[in-house]
């Protein structure tokens, strides 16, 4: 052997543990950058989720059965009352509904006369919220509809009170729903009372913020924000949040406006994933339909 080199080992032992550790540190770091910075590892996530999804489902089954069994027994008692109440409610809103149909047809005619775009009718599919993401850094939940039901990333999600969020990843059997309050989500909104447009950003702590509104803006606590439909993701007219705090001082050009989302999917519930007919994307944005 060449002088200065180590003596040949008696047993082949492969690379030292430190070398293997170095290799795995480099590998995790590169995975991390590729995933967080470029979002380029969705295929790997899809592959692993085929294994991890059924495991999670199995792990959560005992708890779910207990909760559902309890809820079922209670629901049986409540169902009778509920049916009665719904019957009377239905009667009560029947005249309103008739009027609404009349108004809708009238509205359609008027819009035709004015040569405005027709408001498309919106369909969707209901999905159950399976669980909240365990990662404490994000506000996400998982729902039980996935690629096999035709769900794709980017679809908006609502419940009976208003917008809940947006589908950000679709797996085979489930999909990841990022809530409005996640730090990475923003919704173009309109103030219902004044018609002024703005963008609501999630704060990551259960609230939303309207940024870049001048201190002179006409906005008061209690104002309802609804989607403006400008982004072609959320259809116009769905309620989003209620303004809970407005502070502005003259030293700052922008007012500090906090809003509380009306819908909440963090507790177990049923949500509606909307199928929105996408208008043709602009050429620049065609490559990047993801809102991130």
């Amino acid at each position, binding site marked *: 052997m060449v002088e200065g080199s180590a003596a040949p080992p008696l047993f082949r032992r492969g690379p030292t*543990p430190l070398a*293997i*550790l170095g290799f*795995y*540190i480099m*590998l*995790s*770091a*590169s*995975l*991390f950058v*590729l*995933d*967080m*910075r470029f979002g380029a*590892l969705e295929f*790997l*996530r899809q592959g*692993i*989720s085929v*294994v*991890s999804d059924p*495991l*999670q489902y*199995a*792990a*959560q089954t005992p*708890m*779910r059965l207990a909760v559902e069994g309890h809820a079922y027994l209670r629901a049986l008692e409540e169902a009778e009352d509920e049916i009665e109440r719904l019957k009377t409610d239905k009667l009560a809103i029947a005249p309103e509904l008739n009027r609404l149909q009349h108004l809708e047809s009238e509205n359609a005619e008027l819009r035709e006369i004015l040569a405005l775009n027709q408001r498309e009718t919106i369909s969707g599919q209901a999905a159950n919220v*399976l*669980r*909240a*993401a*365990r*990662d*404490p*850094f*994000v506000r*996400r939940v*998982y729902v039980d509809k996935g690629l096999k039901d035709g769900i794709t990333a980017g679809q908006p999600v609502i419940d009976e009170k208003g917008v809940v969020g947006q589908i950000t990843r679709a797996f085979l059997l489930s999909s*990841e729903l990022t809530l409005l309050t996640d*730090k990475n989500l923003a919704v173009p909104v309109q103030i219902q009372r004044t018609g002024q447009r703005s963008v609501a950003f999630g*704060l*990551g*702590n259960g609230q939303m913020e309207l940024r870049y509104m001048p201190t002179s803006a006409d906005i008061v606590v209690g104002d309802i924000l609804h989607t403006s439909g400008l982004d072609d993701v959320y259809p116009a007219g769905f309620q989003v949040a209620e303004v809970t705090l407005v502070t502005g001082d003259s030293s700052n050009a922008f007012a500090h406006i906090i809003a509380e989302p009306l819908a909440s999917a*963090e507790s177990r519930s049923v949500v509606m994933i909307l199928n929105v007919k996408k208008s043709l994307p602009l050429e620049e944005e065609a490559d990047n339909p993801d809102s991130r």
Partner: protein
Amino acid sequence: MQTPSNYSRRILRPAHPWFIALSLFIALLLNMLSTGQWLFMPDWVMLTLCFWNMREGRTMKMRSSFFLGLVMDVANGAALGQHALAYVLVGYTAGSISRRMFWFSLTRQTLLMLPLFLSVTALQIFIRLMAGETFPGWGLFISPVITALLWPPASLLLLLPQYQPEERDENRPIL
């Protein structure tokens, strides 16, 4: 002078590979419970990996830590590589300090595991903050403390099968 935990009249049988795999699988299921946003939940997989890397450093491969980490990343919806890096580091450290650790009692071992779990958790938080996330709360640092407190019961539980003698012999009792 306290009694070191490796000083014992008991003779340990080697851990069965299937028992190692089973315990890791159960830890994975425990980690996947729908505990939502409870920040203080212990990391069962980290605890079990740490134990096996310390006891059975020769059989444990670093790639098993890595792949368990990747599965946890996808299951949690965390950044890919976050748990993988943490588990590989814990596994390596546990393996390299094992010869010293067994001279301490379980209580002292717990005290020594705490900084390891704390620093790995801090590393995970640091990585996410670097990526631009907001800090979710100090409850995150309670989780490694609870994980460390679970060290003595987990050690006793995971050592149980190794204490069972192959055949009971009245003349040569293995206690």
